[in-house]
């Protein structure tokens, strides 16, 4: 019993990275209607920037994360402003293809800049150590990650429910014409939302740096999982993305413990079943 509980808790910490990745993906889809294949690459860039500031230049951990968010935000801005903007009214095949092109580009760019060797910066001292939970040592850092994930969830909820900007965004998500009719500047909103999503991805990547591997291709390795999550939860649905991430993270954790052979299979099975039973996702309307 304790074993299962502990395993679940570990899976939960894994799920939080997925949540941060999926959140941006689903917001961008919900508002811009673009399924951003390159979203994982922004996650990767977040990791690389955080590594550079914190691991290479020894900037303070928190500052490094902030800086990496800003840097990726800039990348996201350029991406939206000069490329994505031109294909909003195109078939989603073209949107997928364009962003797929950027996966290839970013994967090679980081290799040119940072080389092929996997990077892992040191763990900040204040995160060292473990806490005994269910009679077993559980890393502080994982607790921190879970906390961060939950915090982001709350903040997002506040932003979209309580702030003026959030309302504007929701309006333009539900009905562009209507929104622009009541004077919402759609292009600005779109750019804003995309940059925002990029920063969420970057946050996920940056928070992973002390414990995970920073290497070319980590983004494209995770994007499919993020797709699965957003589909399970309902495309464009934040609550769904959170639940979906938790499901995927925890289920695969148990998969590894209980039936290791089918772990890979499992997640896709879940997605297929959800799609067939409730194509709009668990929380989709």
């Amino acid at each position, binding site marked *: 019993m304790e074993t299962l509980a502990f395993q679940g808790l570990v899976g939960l910490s*894994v799920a939080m*990275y997925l949540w941060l990745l999926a959140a941006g993906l689903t917001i961008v889809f919900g508002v811009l209607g673009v399924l951003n294949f390159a979203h994982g690459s922004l996650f990767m860039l977040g990791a690389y920037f955080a590594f550079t500031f914190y691991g290479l230049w020894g900037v303070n951990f928190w500052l490094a994360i902030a800086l990496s968010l800003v840097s990726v935000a800039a990348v996201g801005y350029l991406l939206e402003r000069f490329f994505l903007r031109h294909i909003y009214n195109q078939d989603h095949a073209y949107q997928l293809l364009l962003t797929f092109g950027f996966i290839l580009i970013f994967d090679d760019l980081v290799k040119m800049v940072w080389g092929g060797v996997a990077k892992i910066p040191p*763990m900040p001292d204040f995160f060292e150590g473990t806490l005994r939970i269910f009679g077993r040592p559980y890393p502080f850092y*994982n607790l921190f990650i879970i906390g961060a994930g939950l915090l982001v969830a709350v903040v997002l909820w506040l932003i979209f429910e309580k702030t003026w900007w959030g309302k504007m965004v929701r309006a333009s998500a539900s009905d562009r014409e209507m929104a622009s009719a009541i004077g919402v500047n759609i292009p600005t909103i779109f750019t804003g939302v995309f940059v925002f999503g990029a920063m969420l991805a970057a946050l996920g990547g940056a928070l992973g740096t002390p*414990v995970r591997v920073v290497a070319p291709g980590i983004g494209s390795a995770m994007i499919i999982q993020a797709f699965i999550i957003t589909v399970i939860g309902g495309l464009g649905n934040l609550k769904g993305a959170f639940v979906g991430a938790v499901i995927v993270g925890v289920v695969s954790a148990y998969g590894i413990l209980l039936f290791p*052979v089918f772990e890979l299979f499992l997640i896709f099975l879940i997605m297929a079943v959800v799609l067939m039973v409730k194509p709009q996702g668990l929380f989709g309307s």
Partner: protein
Amino acid sequence: MSEKKKISRRTFLKAAAVTGIGSLAWGAGRVGEAQEKKEKTPAKAKPAKKVLGVDVIKIGGQGVTSGAHADYGWQILAGSTMAIEEINAKGGILGSKLELKFMDEELKPAVAVKNARYLATEWGAHYLFGVDSSGSAMAVGPVLPEIDRVCMFCHASTHRLTEELVAGKGIKQIFRIAAPVYQESILSSLIFKDFPNIKRWAGIHCDYEYGYSTWALFKETLKKYRPDVEFVSIAWAPFWTMDFSSHIAAVMAANPDAIHATPWAGEGVMLLRQALMLGVFDKIQAWFQCMGGSVDLLEGISREVEAGKFKNNLWATARYIHNYPDTPENRKFVESFRKRWNRLPNYSAETSYSAIYVFKAAVEKVRSLKTADLIKALEGMDLMTPGGKRFFRPEDHQAIYNVPVGRVIKDPNYPIPILGDLKVFPAKDYYRNPPFAPIKMDK
């Protein structure tokens, strides 16, 4: 030459990016020529050229140069490039210069086969080498007879390559200079059979043939010597595992005394660091990281080793480690490699460096580039290499040489950790011998 030495890895890759790997080797050839004029080539080199009937001997290599494992391909490229520069500087082989073309196998068998075909039938390579992934090796092997080339495998380690394809199917064009999975599985069991307190083993292994065969062989052999040990749990990690916490937690749930693990490259580093976070090293008596002796991995855990976080319980091996054997050949190799690329060589650098010299020896022996002759020359050849004396077993074309197992420790003479407290076993004692019985893999 001197300015050539200073070229850093990055600029080297940039050059490669712009002008293509081939041209780099061409550059190397030029350097060679320059050298040649200085120390005026031995007179017999000129007529010798006729022996081979070519001015340039073309050598085609491949490895992973994209994605998370890109450093392995780079090491193969670096090792072979250095060997070719040296040989060309001394006038080439029987007066013919060497030219290298290197391609990305992407860890995709189909791509590896395409590369092999291109290098052999289009670009005109006389000799093939490299290949990182086992799947790619198993795919390239059967094609070699059709394209009529020898391929010297420098990393791919599945036992099936030599046991099934060479000894079984009789594909004579396959040779392997690197130690196969016997290294991580059988050798480790020979070491750990002598740890009476370690009774409960767990595994965290790659979710592909490499992991399966390593774990199976390890269990099979250890059980022979130690009927009392149990294998209490196993977690399989597919390529691109982004987080090992779940795997570690899963196996630790069974309170093992020791853990046997295969994930390599960046994934290996991540695995070890997350194991530290989860306090694994406070509970277990030993952790065997199969390819933990690889330079990129040692670089990755340098800090933790220095801080003694592994409590001296981290064991590892590799297909070559830079501090063994303590021979002039090896010292010279490591030194010039560090000069040339200002990094330490990992095993694929040594195996591919030696792969070129093995080829040189074979050609000089039979004074021919014909595949059939090369096979004759290579079968049963033994040669001194940085990794020690290598003997190519005629039955399965597997190179026999010793690589020790050791604890990962810090040594003031090296910038990164090394393997110390080395346990050396004669290779013939832990290599499987023909005729081969298939390994049963229950997973």
